[in-house]
């Protein structure tokens, strides 16, 4: 019987069938971070248990550390958590990629870049955007804190088998339309619960032609579609991306692994529980207007008018979102004044993202009323970007060039958009209060965020064009 890639990934990790469509699954890779990592290790220790496989577990620091140049000023609770993570990972024999070391970075940037993430692995992390790693062909998903303890103590996880969904992106996207725009457009179409209960495979010609970093961006937003897991089939690009990375297999082991990875893609006739097809030629650069990633329109679009929405509940939801965002119904979204621009997060902080933003910024100055940050996703991204001179492009334009971490995506390190201010952000959540209490977030691609920084308003990057 033809199998989906999901079935191959799932079946190869079943340790025991527990009935009710539920299985005990082997966890091949587990990454801890500062927000929950030390607490989990302490919990396990308190129960008198040991970490089952410390050699399959990695850790890094991203959520609570300051991104200020020189790393001065991490909030006191962050300092405590980071200290505890160092102590507890050392005691358990877990490899920590610490601040200022190559390898440190946002979990979902450093995992793929170091080859901790590999095709075919089952990877978990106490963070919902773990689906990002699916862009290398891994079965990767976020787990809660109790589940995380379970993984540490047993190297397994109890999970109910999700249904399968395939999203096929077809066609060649217009200039300035990036992987971020494609996935936002999908969320706009099917809604933030369109993928709930599904493992989503992104396929089609557009995905095949897409660079690996773009696939990571697409998979990153799976959870905003409601899907815990999203992935793409591994191919030659995936192998090229991974070969020679720090943790990838070497020599004969590499050849054997690649051989196995070639068997992972869905069989030709595999059947999915749900199929969606998207013509990417119709997609414009996207921007969110509301407080859910599904509140998204093309940059040439208008802010929705609640009066035009027949369904009472939806009407009210749109009205609430517009009140929070301080936007007028029916107006063009382009031209809305902006106070902050944040280029960073596990969605869009890789080298290709910084290059795309720098291309718009080069030779220009940001609007003086805007505060604009670039926060590279990892120490390696930062060093590569500096080697190319991208830091100078941003600094010359008036951006702040910061140290790698989650920073203003979540504000768990205290770096916030001030109340009532408007931010264009390359992150993944425009939720109420996400970037700080009463902060107003518009999600967009790196190029679109860069354009907003230059003009001081939400701007169609296609009109602005590239810099000099």
């Amino acid at each position, binding site marked *: 019987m033809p199998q989906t890639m999901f079935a191959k990934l799932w079946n190869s990790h079943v340790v025991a069938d527990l009935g*009710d469509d539920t299985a005990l699954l082997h966890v091949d890779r587990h990454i801890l971070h500062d927000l929950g990592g030390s607490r989990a290790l302490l919990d396990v220790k308190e129960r008198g248990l040991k970490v089952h496989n410390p050699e399959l577990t990695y850790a890094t620091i991203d959520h609570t550390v300051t991104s200020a140049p020189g790393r001065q000023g991490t909030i006191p609770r962050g300092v*405590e958590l980071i200290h505890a993570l160092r102590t507890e990972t050392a005691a358990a024999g877990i490899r920590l990629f610490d601040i200022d070391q190559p390898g440190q970075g946002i979990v979902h940037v450093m995992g793929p870049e170091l080859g901790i993430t590999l095709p*075919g692995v089952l990877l978990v992390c106490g963070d919902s955007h773990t689906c990002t790693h699916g862009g290398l062909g891994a079965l990767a998903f976020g787990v*809660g804190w109790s*589940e995380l303890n379970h993984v540490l103590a047993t190297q397994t996880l109890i999970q*109910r088998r999700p249904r399968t969904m395939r999203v096929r992106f077809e066609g060649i996207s217009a200039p300035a339309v990036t992987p971020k725009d494609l996935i936002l457009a999908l969320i706009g179409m099917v809604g933030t619960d369109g993928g709930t209960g599904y493992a989503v495979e992104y396929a089609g010609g557009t995905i095949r032609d897409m660079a690996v970093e773009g696939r990571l961006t697409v998979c990153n937003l799976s959870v905003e579609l409601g899907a815990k897991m999203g992935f793409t089939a591994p191919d030659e690009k995936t192998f090229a991306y991974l070969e020679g990375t*720090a*943790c990838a297999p070497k020599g004969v082991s590499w050849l054997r692994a690649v051989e196995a990875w070639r068997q992972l893609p869905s069989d030709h006739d595999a059947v999915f529980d749900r199929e969606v097809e998207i013509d990417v030629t119709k997609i414009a650069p996207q921007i969110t207007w509301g407080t859910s990633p599904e509140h998204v329109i093309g940059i040439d679009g208008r802010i929705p008018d609640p009066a035009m929405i027949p369904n009472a509940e939806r009407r009210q939801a749109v009205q609430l979102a517009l009140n929070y965002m301080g936007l007028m119904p029916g107006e063009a979204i382009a031209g809305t004044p902006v106070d902050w621009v944040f280029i960073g997060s596990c969605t869009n902080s890789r080298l290709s993202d910084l290059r795309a933003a720098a291309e718009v910024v080069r030779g220009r100055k940001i609007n003086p009323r805007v505060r604009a940050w670039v926060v590279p996703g990892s120490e390696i991204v930062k060093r590569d970007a500096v080697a190319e001179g991208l830091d100078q492009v941003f600094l010359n334009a008036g951006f702040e060039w910061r140290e790698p971490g989650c920073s203003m995506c979540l504000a768990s390190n205290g770096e916030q958009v001030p109340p009532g201010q408007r931010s264009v952000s390359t992150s993944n959540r425009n939720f109420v209060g996400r970037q700080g209490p009463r902060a107003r977030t518009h999600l967009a691609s790196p190029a679109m965020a860069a354009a907003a920084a230059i003009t001081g308003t939400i701007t169609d990057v296609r009109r602005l064009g590239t810099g000099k």
Partner: protein
Amino acid sequence: MKKFDRLTAVAAPLMRANIDTDIVIPINRMVGNSIRGTLGKWAFSSLRYLPDGSDNPEFVLNRTPYRDAEILIVGPNFGCGSSREPAVWAIQERGIKAIVGSGFGDIFYNNCFQNGLLPVVLDPAVVQAIAEEVEQSQGTSHVSVDLEKCEVTTSSGKRYAFSLEPRRRTALIEGLDEIGATLKLDSEIRAFQARDREDRPWIYTSRANA
């Protein structure tokens, strides 16, 4: 873990769609290793408090009799977004023991079972009907959730059956310890790893490179 069998209580309707876990508990209240027991006060902060810190009189849990609610009736896709388990803790610390809705965020749903908070999934129209009955009675109409019978009943006598996998149901009723149960299968886990080392040796050797 808290056990759950049956409950009759005040139910508070909170029917907004897509209430994400950032709304349930803001991040700044959950940074730290000893946050348990401190979260109830911050549950639903952005809805519950006005910018000056006073109670928002319009928020359902700030109104009598809903203040004493032990059941939440929620809109679609409740608990979407972040995997933060403190969202479940905050709801529990606020006194809620069961949530009735038409669909939940996947990770939030799993987290509920880990902590003995019962998420009940019913048809959207049924959830709406329950919310309306409660609202029409101004909250005096209580709701019962019975996990033994897998049934929700309202004061007017309407009964709605819900389904739940037997293993999850048993775990809630008995307050099962999942880690303990899995460790009983440790010989199977080790046998899996031994076989897997032959099939996929690269999984187990990466660390040597790093």
